[in-house]
Every structure is written in structure tokens, then in C-alpha cells.
């Protein structure tokens, strides 16, 4: 079962005239990746900007004719299942008044990125968003191969052939322009063998131009970008080559050389028999108008948007066409074929151009097992529709693959959103933590300064009473703590002798340290005593944990010591306060004293360690 023999052959438009649709009563334009810059009720002129691109993948929308904006809101789009999307309705006034078009006079001076952005502003669309991908244009890597894709990929398509027959000179001009700006090492126009008239029209032009004509003979999905690149690009070129649809290239030529935004395209209206019509239609024209122009009525026929294999049914003839509407198929209404169970004939696998196993993929896609579908390489499916066409059971293979790919895309988006949320949450936690530490540091510094002052005042050996301390035993405890601190301070040089380079500095530091320690111990003891006097605190462990996180991550030795002491004291305090609340004063005082002692000792120990 070879593919070329079973697909209907391409029929050349030949000498058929290119029709022009009359001005429709209403135009429905979609705003994908574009934000509207007109208001309801506003009168717009032909070529006037209606919406600006607001993302990398959107293009601007221009008014196809003059008229009034009637509505801006969700409209059904010419896509599978006709999803609602924001669009605008333009009611033509029949005058067709146009803005004057300033042509780009110094276009040869444009850079690739400038060209890409200019095309985006002119509403010229390629296969995925703007004709030239912005991300690619911004990289500005030298282009090895530029393919202009004029292959009529699916059965019943004629629009590109028609365009080449009618506008061969304009296309050649546009290609010359692209070649001049993008400077590809090789510029190729790919066309299929069956498109005889178009080839004839181009042959005469190709002789003295910078581009080559490549006639493709491969079977059906050969017109896909990936397949074309595989067929035409040499191994060394495959990395940096670009494939552009010929309709977009033609529109780009009009836009850059004549300043004319893209407002129309050629559409084939075919009855899937021999008869077909090609017409130039304004973007946003309702499908019904195109059918009327071709002499068909939309009531008696089922509508298919697209070619014979990838086309999808349109539920409604009022939907407006868009830049990808290359073909409209009209069929007599028939009862839909019912899907039968898979009989494992294996035809889908043998015809698949990507060498996938569509029956396995379908099984997993229909059961919503996306991970399995990915394992069976759903991502490699080019959605060519051949498997659906050869399936004897009429299984909706292509539909389910389309749906599953979309779900996969959605799942990826959700995963990205989740990753972003995780990052933001973690950063927030980090920020809170940092703020807390900085606050604690500031507080500690202030406490240390005050304590130093106090210590200077209390430099006399008579350990005078703390003004705020009330109980005598508390004072005694503090005094004991201070005495111990002083003792340790005296012992310190013996513990760590001649380690410091400058003994004088060490002595000064030690003095200061002792004073600070004493003050710290006092403060801690006081605070602890007050806390302990309170009734049982319920959230003691939590506080302890909070304080634990205030690790001495400070670079200054002094602050480290202070914090260590403080947090030890607090931990002790917390432990104390979590113990039964009915402690008498004596016990509390003892605990406080012990705590203060421990804190002082620890502080001294820490200090010696850090001195080392």
C-alpha cells in the first residue's frame, strides 16, 4: 500500500480565474496574541491597525476594509471544535476608504529582527505566529538555508499554486527581498511535481534570480516543515535553516515593498469532486460568503475547514476565515460513520510517516493516559491524518491525537505554573527568613550598645542593683553570673595565649567582651525571669524553634557571641516556661541564675573558640 497511489492526485488550478469575493456584510477577525486598540462603535479605515501583537506568537490585525466596529468579544473561531475566543466584528460601510500606505523606502537596511518585528506589525503570519519567529530573529545567527514552501500538501488544496500562477513576479520580488535582508547561503523554493502550471510560471523567473526551484517528489506529508527540512537541508545546514510558507512570503513582500498590511488571502473552495474555485477573500469574511461566491449554498452542505486529510468540520457558516484558511471543503451532508473497534489490522502503523504505532497511541489517548502516550511518542506525531484515513474502523485517531497533544500542552503549562509558584514560595520563605535575621541582628546591635553603656556605668566593683530588677534573689543571681563571667574573662588569656597577633587589641576586645557578656547575661536573666513569672506559654517549642533559626550567621565575632548567648538563654527560658507553671519564686530564680550562668559560660567558650 503505497501512499501516492491511494491519495487523490493534485489537480492544477490551470486556467481557472482567481475570483474576488464581494464585500461581505460582516467581518469577524480573531485576536489571538493581539490586544485590541479600537473601541466599539469606532469607524476605522482600510489598513488601519485594529489590534497590536501582545506576545511573541501574535501578529497585529488590520482592518480589511473601512467600516464600524460593532462588537468586541468572544467569537467562535475556525479551529477544531470552534472554540470561543476574543475577536472583533467589523461592519463594512462599503466605501472601502483606505489609509495612505507609506512604503518602506530603505528596506535593504533592515536587520533580521527589525524585519521580523515589522512583519509582525503588518500582520503577516507564518506557520506559527509571525512569519519570522522573533526568537530566531533575535539570535541573528547566519542562515544557511531558507526554504519557501509552496508545496500543496494535502489533497484539494490549490491556493498556493494559484498564488504562484497569478503573482509569480510578486513572489519572486518578495523572495529577492527576503534573500537580501536575511542573507541565506541558499534560498530554495520547494514545489511539488504535480503543480505544473506554477512550475512553468516560476521556471522563466528562476533563471536570473538568487533562488533555486526544488521540485519535490515525495509522497504526502512532504510539505510539512520538518519533512521539507529533512528532504532539502544538507546535514551541515539542518541546524540553522528556516521554512516559510509561500503565502506568507508573498504577504511579506507586499508589506515591506509596498507598505500594505496583510488583509486578505487566497482560499480554495472545493466540493471534493473535480470542481473547485479559488478566490481572494478578505480575512474575517464569513465562510458562507465564500460559498455563495463559488455558487454553493451553506445550508445543504457540511463544511470542512482545511484539506482532505487534516480538515476539520466547521459547525457554523458564519465563522470568519483567518490566515490559515487555505481551503474550504464542501460535502453533501451524510450520516456520520460510526467508529468500530480496532481490528488490529496494522495499516495505520505501516502508513505512518513518523513510524509511530497509532493504534497504541490511540488506546492510551482514549484512556487519557498521557504519560503512556508520551512514551509512544505522541510528541513526534505530525498530525498528518493518514492513520485516520486508512483506518477501516473509522476510529477518530487524528482527533484524539489532537486533543491529547493539547492536553499535554496544558499539562506542561500547568507544570510551568507550578514550578514558578514553587520558586516564588521558596523565595518568599527565604525573604521572610532573611528579614527576620536582619531584624534580630539590628535588635542585638542596639542591645549591645545599651549594654556596653550600662557596663561602663557599672565599672565599679560594687555590683550595684539593676534598676528594673525587683527581687533580691534575682540580683544575687545576676551578681553571681557576673562574677563568673569576670572569672572566665580573667582565665581567658591563659586558655588562649599568644594566639592573637596583637595582644593589645586582644586585651581591649576582651575587656569589651567581658562587659558585653555581663550586660547580656543580665539582660537575659532579667528577661528569662520575667517570662518565667508569666503563666505557662503554650507555644514555647515554636518559639524555641524560631530562635533556633536565628543562627549566628553573622560575620562579626561580637554579634555572633551576643546572638549565641541570647538564643541559648531563650531556649532555656522556653524550656523553663514549658515546664509546669506553678513554680515558686525561689525555683524560678534558681533557674534564671543557672541559665544566666550557662549563657555566660557558653558565650565565653564561644569567644575563645572564635579567637582561636
Amino acid at each position: 500500500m503505497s501512499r501516492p497511489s491511494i491519495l487523490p492526485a493534485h489537480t492544477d488550478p490551470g486556467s481557472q480565474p482567481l475570483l474576488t469575493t464581494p464585500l461581505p456584510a460582516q467581518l469577524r477577525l480573531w485576536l489571538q496574541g493581539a490586544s485590541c486598540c479600537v473601541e466599539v462603535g469606532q469607524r476605522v479605515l482600510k489598513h488601519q491597525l485594529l489590534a497590536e501583537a501582545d506576545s511573541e506568537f501574535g501578529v497585529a490585525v488590520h482592518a480589511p476594509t473601512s467600516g464600524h466596529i460593532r462588537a468586541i468579544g468572544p467569537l467562535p473561531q475556525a479551529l477544531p471544535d470552534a472554540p470561543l475566543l476574543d475577536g472583533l466584528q467589523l461592519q463594512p460601510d462599503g466605501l472601502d476608504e483606505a489609509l495612505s500606505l507609506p512604503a518602506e523606502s530603505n528596506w535593504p537596511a533592515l536587520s533580521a529582527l527589525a524585519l521580523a518585528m515589522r512583519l509582525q506589525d503588518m500582520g503577516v503570519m507564518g506557520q506559527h505566529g509571525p512569519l519570522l519567529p522573533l526568537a530566531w530573529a533575535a539570535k541573528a545567527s547566519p542562515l544557511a538555508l531558507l526554504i519557501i514552501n509552496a508545496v500543496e500538501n494535502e489533497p484539494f488544496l490549490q491556493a498556493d499554486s494559484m498564488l504562484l500562477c497569478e503573482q509569480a513576479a510578486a513572489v519572486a520580488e518578495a523572495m529577492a527581498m527576503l534573500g537580501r535582508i536575511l542573507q541565506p547561503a541558499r534560498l530554495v523554493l520547494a514545489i511539488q511535481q504535480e503543480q505544473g502550471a506554477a512550475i512553468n510560471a516560476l521556471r522563466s523567473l528562476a533563471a536570473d534570480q538568487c533562488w533555486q526551484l526544488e521540485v519535490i517528489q515525495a509522497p504526502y506529508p512532504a510539505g510539512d516543515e520538518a519533512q521539507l527540512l529533512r528532504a532539502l537541508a544538507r546535514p551541515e545546514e539542518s541546524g540553522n535553516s528556516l521554512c516559510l510558507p509561500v503565502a506568507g512570503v508573498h504577504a511579506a513582500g507586499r508589506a515591506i515593498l509596498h507598505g500594505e498590511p496583510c488583509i486578505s488571502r487566497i482560499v480554495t473552495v472545493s466540493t471534493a469532486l473535480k470542481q473547485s474555485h479559488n478566490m481572494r477573500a478578505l480575512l474575517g469574511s464569513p465562510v458562507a460568503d465564500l460559498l455563495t461566491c463559488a455558487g454553493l449554498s451553506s445550508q445543504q452542505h457540511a463544511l470542512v475547514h482545511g484539506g482532505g486529510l487534516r480538515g476539520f468540520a466547521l459547525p457554523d457558516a458564519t465563522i470568519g476565515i483567518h490566515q490559515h484558511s487555505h481551503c474550504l471543503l464542501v460535502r453533501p451532508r451524510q450520516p456520520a460513520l460510526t467508529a468500530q473497534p480496532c481490528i488490529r489490522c496494522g495499516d495505520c502503523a505501516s502508513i505512518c510517516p513518523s513510524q509511530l504505532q497509532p493504534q497504541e497511541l490511540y488506546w492510551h489517548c482514549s484512556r487519557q493516559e498521557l504519560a503512556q502516550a508520551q512514551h509512544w511518542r505522541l510528541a513526534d506525531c505530525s498530525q498528518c491524518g493518514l492513520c485516520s484515513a486508512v483506518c477501516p474502523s473509522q476510529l477518530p485517531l487524528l482527533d484524539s491525537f489532537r486533543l491529547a497533544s493539547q492536553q499535554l500542552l496544558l499539562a506542561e503549562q500547568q507544570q510551568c505554573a507550578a514550578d514558578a509558584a514553587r520558586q516564588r514560595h521558596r523565595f518568599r520563605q527565604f525573604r521572610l527568613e532573611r528579614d527576620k535575621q536582619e531584624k534580630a541582628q539590628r535588635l542585638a546591635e542596639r542591645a549591645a550598645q545599651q549594654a556596653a553603656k550600662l557596663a561602663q556605668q557599672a565599672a565599679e566593683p560594687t555590683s550595684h542593683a539593676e534598676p528594673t530588677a525587683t527581687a533580691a534573689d534575682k540580683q544575687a543571681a545576676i551578681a553571681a553570673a557576673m562574677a563568673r563571667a569576670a572569672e572566665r574573662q580573667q582565665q581567658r588569656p591563659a586558655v588562649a595565649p599568644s594566639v592573637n597577633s596583637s595582644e593589645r587589641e586582644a586585651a581591649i576586645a576582651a575587656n569589651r567582651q567581658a562587659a558585653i557578656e555581663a550586660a547580656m547575661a543580665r539582660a537575659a536573666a532579667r528577661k528569662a525571669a520575667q517570662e518565667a513569672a508569666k503563666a505557662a506559654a503554650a507555644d514555647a517549642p515554636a518559639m524555641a524553634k524560631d530562635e533556633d533559626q536565628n543562627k549566628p550567621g553573622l560575620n562579626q565575632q561580637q554579634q555572633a557571641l551576643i546572638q549565641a548567648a541570647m538564643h541559648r538563654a531563650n531556649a532555656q527560658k522556653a524550656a523553663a516556661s514549658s515546664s509546669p507553671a506553678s513554680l515558686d519564686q525561689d525555683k524560678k530564680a534558681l533557674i534564671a541564675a543557672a541559665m544566666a550562668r550557662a549563657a555566660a559560660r557558653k558565650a565565653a567558650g564561644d569567644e575563645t573558640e572564635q579567637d582561636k
Partner: protein
Amino acid sequence: MTLVLRLLLLLLAIWLLGKVLRSSAQKLRPATSTLPPLAERIDAILPQTQCGQCGHAGCLPYAQALARGEDSINRCPPGGEDGIRKLAALLHTDYLPFAADAPPQKPKAVALIDEATCIGCTLCIQACPVDAILGSAKQMHTVLADECTGCELCLAPCPVDCISMRPATSQPADWRWGYPVIAIKAVKPGSSS
């Protein structure tokens, strides 16, 4: 003669059995050292709304509790049944339906601040786990809809009840024509052939 042949065949069978056992043992023990810690892998599955509906203070604490085996996998309503399936697959446990006491599952929503009523108290800003609310004291606040996870943690602290949840609009209406997988592939160096 047959005895020798029998012995040779026996040895062959034993050797083959040894090979099968060895390869299965490798399959049984996948290289766990290359994997990130279990809590991280669980956290990667969780939806990161940080809503606390599971009873933990965020997704990571819940993931850690799951990794320690201290909680059940059916406590995350935003993750949906799909999330439970993924967790069950990762943790080699059975699928569990949602816990009876778990909050009901809701469609994804984003918070919206009624700008006329907002008094600028900053309480919602402090409550937002992903910093998706902008504003400062006495100034009107606003929600970054792209960053909002729909956790509803900002609803409770608001003193004037000016925050409401609106259904998120990012359904797959963004059907991009032949979304640019191929285009990006085609211009990446050395990707195709």
C-alpha cells in the same frame, strides 16, 4: 554421551538463569543515588498552590510528611484525582479516593481584589504564599493573576472582605495554530536530520 550432553545443557540453563536473575536484580534496584530525595520528587508532583488544605503549611511540608509516611496521599484537592494517581505510582501505594474530611475540589480560580473596597491594610500581602499580591500600606492592592495559585489564603485575613475568587480563564482556548514546536526545533542548531 547423553549424560555429557545433559550436563552441558544443565550448565547452560544455570548460566542463563543466573543472567536472568542478575538483570532482574538490576531492574529491582534502580539507581536510587541519581534520583533527588523522595520529598523533592513528591513536591514536584504537588500543584504548588501552597494552600494548606492538606493541613500542612505548604506543599513542601506535605511532601516531607508523605516521604516520612506520616500522611495519606489523598489530602490535596487542588492536585485532583490525577495527582493522587501520580502520588500512588511514585510511592508504590494503592489509589485512594479523596478523604471524607478533605475540602471539596474546586475548579482553578484566581483571587480578585475589589479595588473600591480595599483599604490597603497589607494583611493579604502577608498571607499570600507566593507573593502574588502587590501594594503597600494605605494603598490599593492588586493580584497578579498569572502568579496567583488560587489558594484562598488571602480571603480570611481581609478585614473588609474585598477579595473574591474568579474562575481562571486559561483554559485551552489558546489553541495555537500548529504550536511552535517544529519552528523552534528547526532553528535550533543540530536538532534535526
